[in-house]
Structure formats: C-alpha cells, structure tokens
C-alpha cells in the first residue's frame, strides 16, 4: 500500500478551491460514487475496482454547510498527519464541537463527511489520521508478528502461539508489521465461538495453521493484516463462515474482493487469494446439518447478489451454489456441526475439507 503523504493532496485541493473562489466562481469538489453500481470486478487482480463515476459537489447556498464541514475535516486531517497524531471517528466528531455553527450534531454526519474526504483523496482513513473504533480481529497459531514498541520504537516479536486460551489482537494500523511463520494455511473464521473451540483444542497445532477470528464482517485492519500476511508469506487463505447469504455475500465477498462503499481502497483491503471452505450449500446435504429456514431478508440478499453483485455475476459456480441454497430454502450455521458431536468439526469436518482445497468455492 502506498505510503504517500496525503498532505500535498489536501493542499492541492484546498488551493483549487481558493483560486476558484477568488476568480468569483463557485468551487466544487468531485467525489467518487461509493456503491456496488460503481465497481467492476477485476478477475486477474482479484478485487472490486472503482469505476470513474463521480458526483460533483458545487459550493452553493444549499451546500455551503457541508462544504465548510468537508474543508474543516480536511484541515483537521492535515493537522493530524503533520503532528503524527490520530483521532477516532468519535474523537473527530467531538473536535467538531469547537467549530461553532459548523459543528456536527450526530456522529453519523461526521462519519459521512469523513468517508467523503477519504474517497476524495482515494486513501484509507488511517492515512488521514482517522482510526476506527472497532477491533481488528483475533489471531492464534503458528505466527510471529514483528511490531515496534509504540513508545520506544524498539522491535518486538509477538508469538501468537503463546496466548494460551486468549489471542493476539490485530492492531488498527498493520502497514509496518512483519511476519515469520511456517504455517501451511490461514483459517479465517466468522464467529468468535468457533474460533474459541479451535483454540481450546489446539487445532492450529494439529493442522499447522494460523487461526483468525473476524467477528462478523471483517474490519479493514483485519483484511489488510491477512492480505499482507498471505502476500508476504505466500500461504493460502481459507474462509470458514455460516452457510447463509449473509456469510457468503456480505462477509466472504467483502473479505475477498472488497465492498462498494470503500471501493476506492479495495485494492489494498481485499484478500483475493481467499477460498471458501464452508459451510457450502452442498455441505448441508453431505454432512446432514440441522438447518433453519431462510428468512425473507436472506432470500432478498441472495437474489440481490445474483442480480447486482459483480463478483457473483462473474463466478458461475457461486451463482449455482447460491441458487442451490435458495432452492433448498434453508441455512446452516458453523455451530450446526456440533449436532454430530462437539468436536466433530475438528476431528472430521475440517480435516476432510482441508484435504481437498481444490474443491473449495472461489
């Protein structure tokens, strides 16, 4: 990921605004449109690339408030970067309380402006000095993470085998991390519950792998961490999520190729080498898993994916799998394997699956 300083970009944009004003013209800012409709799937590179469509926000009487807020957010970002500081989204919201009339009334307003600024410069918000509140994800297994002490700058080696029943927590900024590992693969898991079971029974030792818990839709830091680890160490990534439209089209798709909303940075925040281990619709049949009926919202999500998502439109196998799931009208969670015994997942399911990675869905 490019480490280019964002400050010159901010200055350039501000300069253009100033000049435009002095020429008695209404300045405007161009933001890329952040939605699935404005991305294309690059098969070779393996991610969603943003297409050219932009929305132009011209400074008028009606937009003057948002425009002022956007510029002030840019100024805040410049200060943060120049002073090597960070602000969480929540903190940025509170900083705006000093802006008198231009203050944000709700954090959702400041988040939106922040996302706009991020997209405007086509950078990651961390590069702007803004950091998310949420945790990156948990790691356990055969991995040594090489980090620096934030105060002394001294290199420290973190052995992810030494967290006992706990785990290493992925930091918000992962760009400077280095890795050492002899693991054969990375197993990325949707739920913390399944992650705990695998850690407790030392699955990573048995299978010589690295376990990562996403806890739902993976954060950008989590995606970037796995991406760099997989790229640098050249090890495969297997994803183990619930067998339902949410697990497939939201969690897995975002993990592998990125999202529409963050389309301008998908290039860095995706894991194109990821493969889908399970739970596949076929698993439901093969493993006789107990199921729940698909809810209306599940069916809608599945149909949406089949119709509009460039990723599923590209991969016929996926289209077939999703149609299969919809035709069965059921979904199965990871934990459904417990129906055959609590450790069935460790003793039977995962070994059987890992033995044939070529059968994984793309």
């Amino acid at each position, binding site marked *: 990921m490019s480490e280019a300083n964002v400050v010159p970009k901010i200055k350039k944009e501000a300069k253009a605004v100033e000049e435009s004003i002095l020429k008695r013209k209404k300045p405007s800012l161009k933001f890329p449109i952040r939605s699935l409709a404005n991305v294309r799937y690059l098969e070779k590179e393996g991610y969603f690339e943003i297409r050219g469509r932009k929305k132009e926000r011209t*400074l008028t009487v009606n937009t003057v408030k948002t*425009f002022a807020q956007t510029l*002030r957010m840019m100024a805040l970002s410049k200060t943060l970067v120049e002073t090597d500081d960070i602000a969480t989204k929540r903190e940025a919201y509170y900083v705006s309380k000093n802006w008198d*009339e231009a203050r944000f009334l709700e954090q959702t307003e400041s988040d939106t402006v922040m996302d706009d600024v991020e997209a405007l410069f086509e950078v990651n918000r961390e590069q702007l000095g803004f950091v998310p509140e949420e945790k990156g994800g948990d790691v356990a297994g055969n991995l040594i993470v090489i980090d620096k002490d934030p105060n002394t700058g001294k290199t420290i080696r973190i052995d992810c085998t030494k967290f006992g029943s706990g785990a290493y927590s992925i930091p918000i900024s992962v760009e400077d991390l280095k890795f050492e590992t002899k693991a054969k693969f990375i197993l990325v898991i949707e739920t913390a519950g399944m992650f705990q079971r695998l850690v407790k029974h030392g699955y990573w030792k048995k299978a010589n792998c690295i376990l990562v818990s996403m806890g739902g839709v993976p954060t950008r830091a989590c995606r970037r961490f796995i991406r760099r680890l997989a790229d640098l160490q050249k090890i495969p990534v297997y994803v183990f999520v619930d067998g339902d439209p949410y697990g497939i089209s939201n969690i897995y798709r975002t993990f592998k190729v990125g999202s529409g909303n963050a389309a301008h940075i998908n290039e860095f925040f995706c894991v194109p080498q990821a493969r889908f281990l399970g739970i596949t619709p076929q698993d439901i049949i093969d493993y006789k898993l107990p199921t729940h009926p698909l809810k209306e919202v599940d069916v809608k999500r599945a149909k949406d994916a089949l119709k509009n998502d460039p990723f599923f439109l590209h991969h016929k196998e996926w289209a077939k799998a999703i149609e299969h799931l919809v035709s069965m009208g059921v979904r199965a969670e990871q934990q459904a394997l417990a129906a055959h015994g609590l450790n069935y997942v460790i003793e039977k399911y995962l070994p059987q699956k890992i033995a044939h990675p070529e059968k994984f869905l793309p």
Partner: protein
Amino acid sequence: MAKRQLKLIARKQKTDRSAKKAAPNEAIPLKKPAKPIVRLTATDLAARQREISVSEFFTKNRHLLGFDSPAKALLTTVKEAVDNGLDACEEAGILPDLVIVISEISETRYKVVVQDNGPGIVKAQIPRVFGQLLYGSKFHRLRQSRGQQGIGISAAGMYGQLTTGRPIKIASRTGLNKPGHEFEIQIDTKRNQPVVVSDRELDGKAPAADKEKRAVERAFEHGTRVELEIEATYKKGRHSVDGYVEQTSIANPHAKITYVDPGGERHEYDRVATELPKAPLEIKPHPHGVELGILLKMLHETKARNIASFLHNDFSRVSAPVAEEIARAAGVSPGMTPGKAAREQAEALYNAIQATKLMAPQSNVLSPIGDELLLEGLKKQVTADFYASTSRSPAVYRGNPFLVEAALAYGGGHLPADELSTLIRFANRVPLLYQQSACAITKSVIQTTWKTYGIQQSRSALPTGPLVIMVHIASVWVPFTSESKEAVASYPEIMKEIRLALQDVGRKLGLYIRRGLREADAEKKRSYIEKYIPHIGIALQEILGIDDKRKEKVCATLKDTLERSRKNE
C-alpha cells in the same frame, strides 16, 4: 295587528301540547285536533279555548327569544337596545353615538342603560313600542335592518318586569326644540298592552341629587334612552356583553360606542368611518319567496281591487303582463277581487307563480359593510400580521336578496397559534354569539379546505392557527333558526355564497403564507451564507497557511458570489 302576528307564535305553539288552541277568528284556520279527547264534548272544549296572550306565551317560551339563562338575558337585553339604537340612527341618517352602561345592583340583578343619538320616538308611540310585544316598524317590510320582528326590546322589558317587577324606563326627545319625555312603562301581560306608570317631561330639572342624569338630560338633543332592571349575571369574555360590544364595533365602523362595564371600566370604541353606510332600500316581496299561507294573508289584506293589480303592485318583479299571465295560468280571472279568492284558487295562484319565470329580485337594496371598512373594523380590534377581506355581489335565496362578506386576520404573535381559530359571525351587522355550531356560517367555514391555504385543519373542525375569521350576511330577511337570532339557517344558496367568500379571503391568505415561507427560506439561506462562509475561510487558512487579509478576501468574494447566485435563483 297583534292578532295577525299571533300566527307566527301560534305555529310554534303546536309543539307545546299543554297549550291551548289559537283563537278561532284567526285569519288562517288552524286544524282542529285530529283525535278529540273522548271524555270531553266540543262544548266543553270550546269553553277552554281562548286567545293566548303573547305575553303569556313569552313567559312560557322565553328561551325562544334569548332569555334562557341570566347571563344570556343580560346580553340579549343590551343587544336588543343597541340594535334598535343603531337602526334608528341609520334610518334617520345620523352617525350613531351610543352609550351603554351596565351596573350591578346585586349579584343577580343588573341595571342596563342604552342611550342613542337617534331621531327619538314621538310621545304617542313610546308606550306601544316598548310596552307591547310584536309592535314595530320592521316586521312588515323587506329591508335590511338589525331588528326584524318587533319583539326584542319589549320582550326585554317584559323579562325585566317578570324578574324584578320594575318597569322599563324610556326617555326620548325628537329634537332640541321639542319637549322630551320620560316614561315608565309596564306591560299588561294578559292583554299585551302597555300600562304607563309615570310620564314626565324632560326639562333638565331632574332631582338635583342625580347629577349624572341631569347632565344627560341637558346633552340630550335627540335620541332615546332605555333603562331596564333585570335579573342577570355578568360574565366576561367572548360570549358576553364585552364580546358583543367589541364585535358590534367591528361590524359598525361608522358607530361610536362607549361602554361602561359593571366593574366601572370605560371602553371607548371610536368610529373609523365618518360616513354612514349606504341606506338599504325597502322592497316588496318577490313572488318566489312567498309561501302559500302568506299569499293567502296578502290576498285578504291587499288594497288592490283585482288579482292582476294585486300581483303587479304588491310584489316586486311582476309586470302587468306577467301578472295577467300568472292569473291565466292559475285559471283565475285577473279581474277577480283578491279577498274573494278561495283557498283552492290561492293554491292555483301559488303554483302558477312557482311555474312562472321571473326576474331575480333587485339586489342593490342591500347595504354591505364593504371590504375596506371590514378591514378597518377588524384591524381596530384584532392585532395581526395579515388581513384580507371580500364583499361579494348580492345573490338570492327563496326570493330574498342577500350578500356575504368575509374577512380574516392572521398571525402576529397575539393570536394563539395552536388553538382553533376564532370565528366571528354577523347578520345585518349584528354579532351572533351563541349557537355557533348550528349556524350556516360555521358549517361553511368547516367545509372549506383550509389546508389548501396553508392552514391546518382537523376533520369536521374549524381551522387551527393564529386566525380570526369574520363573516357577515346582509339580507332583507336573514333566515335565523330561531327568534333569538343566534344562528343562520343553512340554505344551499347562502352556504354557497359563504363558501365562495371564504375561498376568496383564503386564497389571499394562502398567497401571504406561501410568500412568508419563501421569505423564511430565503432568510435561512442568507443566514447559511453568514454562518458557514467563515468556516471555509478558517479551513483554507489552516490548510494553506494564508494570512488573515487573504482569508477575509476569500470570504468576502465567496459571500458576494453566493449572494448574487441566490438572487438569480
């Protein structure tokens, strides 16, 4: 004469089962009871049948005339006296100058004094005008006036007499050089005849103790002063005398009214118009507005020698050829003596009249307040941001010309914004304070879609907002729902005219409200520019490190650019 009018009363009597039947010599024969009571013979009944005194009738039915509660009795008394005073002044071409004084004698007894500067009443007439019910100049003609029936003031006098035993006191002078008279009159309630208790010439020599009275007598060039003592209670507010006087001044901008309330507080309502309203004209009845019973009565009372001249002379809009045409269509000889017409022939005439196309009645006989004076009157009493008024052309219901005027006042912070709007109703310039929901005016206001004009309105309710709506109906004969004259009957023609008038002022209000919204929007945008441009300057300064001077220049230029583009929008 009184007998004739008895019919009116007697008709109501039918609902009163305990009452006796009307006099047998009544002009219109009343039906005998359908089922005679078996135990009595006709002779027995005949012994019981006698004339009902109007006064007795009044005693039993005083609610019909607006004396149903002590509070309302006070209002009705003032109202009848004021109506008479204003009518008298206008008929004589005098700008009205009225003094109303109400004083408390005890908690349940009040003295009402109303004095006008009208033409006065000649001595011989005073006892009958004030001491006999259904005596007056207004019932027998079709002309726009406040009073219509000749019941009002004498009914008030009778009410006072019944509740306090005190006679009504009248002082009147017809001119500076003419002698004035003061009467105390009681009503013989059995015979409906005035009884003069005392009669004294006004000479300014009233007892020295009564200074006020002496001053009044001296200042009394011409006019009439009515003094009554009645059982009553005084309340403040819109439905009381206070509201009545205030509203009267709105609808009578040419009148000066001085009102001293029972608390001794003096309210002066100055005139805003120095000219009298156009005098209304008297018209003959239009044939289409006449019922069969009235036609029969007119046939018997006419001075015309034959049917043709009766139709031509006693009605408006009937030319001689048309009169002949009607008579022929009815199969009645045009030369027949009207008094000899049988009921069947009268009915044939009635049907022929209905079938004949006639010109609409003259409509220039009415005296509207006029949209300008409506506005003046309303502005005088209601503080608001916006006023609108309209005065519609005359229209006709059942052969009677009428016209509708409407005005409204809106906004301004003094009117409550989240309550139902205030409706002020007038008929021939008289405020209508009671029975609001039964009135055609109220119904029309509710049926008007105020949302179209930017005013909130719940279903089947008056609109909600800082709004005062005023509606005036002027007619030679306003159709009230009862003799107490509190609500206008819902004739479709009248409802339609009220609706059109309301829509007219409503549209003006809608324009104003929308313009207000536009201005508020523009103001918001202007303040947007003021508020947020400095932040653009601050941000650019922080990012680019420009100096304050340059920052100010950026802000000023941007402000100018935006202001100009806003104006070009």
